[in-house]
């Protein structure tokens, strides 16, 4: 499972030589040709991805880095301004607000998503539950719904003066809750919606992992009289740890770049209170055409994501060894 994170160490060596042989000219040419073929064939096979990687990843990354030192607006010249953009960014309150909101959002969504996806996965795997086939479809439904539509669905639920939630609260004798005009409550709704959306895919990963836990462990533990909770803690959790690691990593990366859901749910409102980082970058880059400045903000986001990934990978390595 973690295999994919590491370079393929166990990929079988192709060019197997069986001891020193006298190399005759003909054989040598044959071997040379064979070697060449093994360079040409994989190169052809990866060519599409290689081309795309260079064009849509390396090129923009390099130009982005260059533009982040300029005040480029998308047209005309790109005057060099040195570290000016980064300096301005450090003093930009809107950027800080977006960064902090993004971190709060991520810190709330990731644990909630993990809990819900692991919980639903366990319920779908355990023999104790009835009616799994329908439950599976319902739990998986949010994956099929796009973030935009999911945002609309939750906007419809939590509308301030038309939503079902407020209607129920009022008819139970409560007061209308300002789900849209209070910044913290808006963020709360976004967090709930994001957890609802993100559960399905992570659940899929957990289900696959849970099914792969060898049953003999559970049998042995049962013979020793271990209870359900003890078995879950001491067998299941360690066994699925590699999957948990990947789920945490991907959820963090995913939450840090959430945009579409918020766009449809409340447009980062009220006002700009809940603008997250990607929305901030989008607004500066494309609505105000400050490409240089937006590139600088992008690189800060990239740096954060890289730090997250590196820290998690190294923590995982240490745990493994």
């Amino acid at each position, binding site marked *: 499972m973690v295999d994919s994170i590491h370079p393929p160490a166990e990929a079988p060596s192709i060019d197997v030589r069986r001891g020193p042989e006298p190399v005759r000219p003909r054989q040598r040419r044959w071997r040379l040709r064979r070697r060449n073929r093994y360079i040409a064939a994989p190169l052809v096979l990866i060519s599409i991805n290689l081309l795309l990687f260079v064009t849509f990843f390396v090129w923009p990354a390099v130009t982005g880095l260059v533009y982040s030192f300029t005040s480029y607006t998308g047209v005309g010249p790109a005057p060099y301004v040195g570290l000016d953009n980064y300096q301005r960014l450090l003093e930009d309150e809107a950027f800080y607000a977006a960064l902090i909101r993004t971190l709060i959002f991520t810190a709330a969504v990731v644990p909630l998503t993990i809990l819900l996806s692991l919980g639903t996965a366990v319920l779908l795997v355990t023999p104790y539950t009835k009616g799994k086939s329908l439950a599976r479809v319902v739990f998986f439904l949010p994956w099929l*719904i796009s973030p935009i539509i999911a945002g609309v669905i939750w906007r419809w639920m939590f509308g301030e003066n038309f939503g079902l939630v407020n209607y129920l609260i009022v008819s139970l004798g409560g007061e209308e809750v300002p789900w849209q005009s209070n910044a913290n409550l808006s963020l709360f709704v976004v967090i709930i919606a994001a957890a609802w959306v993100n559960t399905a895919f992570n659940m899929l990963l957990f289900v696959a992992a849970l099914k792969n836990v060898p049953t003999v462990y559970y049998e042995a533990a049962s013979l020793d009289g271990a209870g359900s909770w003890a078995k879950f803690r001491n067998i299941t959790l360690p066994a699925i740890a590699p999957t948990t690691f990947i789920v945490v990593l991907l959820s963090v990366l995913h939450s840090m770049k959430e945009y579409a859901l918020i766009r449809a749910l409340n447009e980062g409102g009220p006002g700009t209170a809940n603008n997250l980082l990607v929305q901030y970058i989008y607004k500066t880059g494309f609505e105000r055409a400050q490409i240089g400045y937006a590139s600088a903000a992008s690189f800060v986001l990239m740096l954060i994501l890289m730090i997250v*990934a590196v820290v998690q990978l190294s923590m995982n390595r240490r745990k493994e060894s």
Partner: protein
Amino acid sequence: MAVTTPRPPALRPKRPSAPGELSKKVWATAVMWLLVVVYGFPVLWFLLSSFKPAGDLFSYPLTLFPKNPTIKGFTQAWTSFDVAQYFLNTLIVAVSATVLTIVASAACGYALAKYNSWWLRAFTICVLATTMLPAEVILSPLFLVVRDLGLYNNLAAVVVPAVITATGTFMFRQFFLTVPNDLLEAARIDGSGELSTFVRIMLPLSRPIMLTLAIFSFQWRWNDYIWPLIVLNDPNKFTLQIGVATIVGAENVNWSVLLGASVLSMIPLVAIYLIFQRYVMNADINAGLKD
């Protein structure tokens, strides 16, 4: 959250009256169905609301079931908001991106699994890096690249950058690692060229992976929002998600049309999922990468 452990069914003789066993079943089932309601209700409410006439949407008391069910919201969305055009555009994007993704991922995954050299190992890490640093992070420079390539406002601009995916590549890589090398060696001894071995022997073997990736890729592209939004400018080229988002962004949200358009846009994916359910649910996506 009630936590129960997966336990091998029927490995031990069943004790029907075992104390705790029955209550565990009841509890686990109850919690699961509670969650089913929590996850399903917002969609159900949305779906039922879309059949209400515009006048009834906000009239108190709210009722779960529409009193005068109508499909006016759908027809209105279909005619007044160019939903048909958006459908067509999204379909073109999703299908072409899916086909290209499968071709590129299968070839690349095969190369990464079956050949060994330092530059292939380096490229493996490069492909992984694309997950860590997604398009959102390099939004503005990526836009400039697409513009400089002359793809701006062209559906190809949505398709082409999306073709390289770490998830797809690694799904195929993991699969081809499990294919025995003997097969490859045998083909070599028989004088089959490397590429023809791949096309004639290896590719047909990977059909289940292809189908799984096809569903995944179709879903990614169908639901994409921010990238199409940036590279498409002409309303005639909008995808469904942008179309729906423009309805949401309007000064006065026309909920009747919005509900209709949203429900319509969900139909294809739900249908595909219901048909190919087992390819999604049984997918052992241990590469575990999400786009």
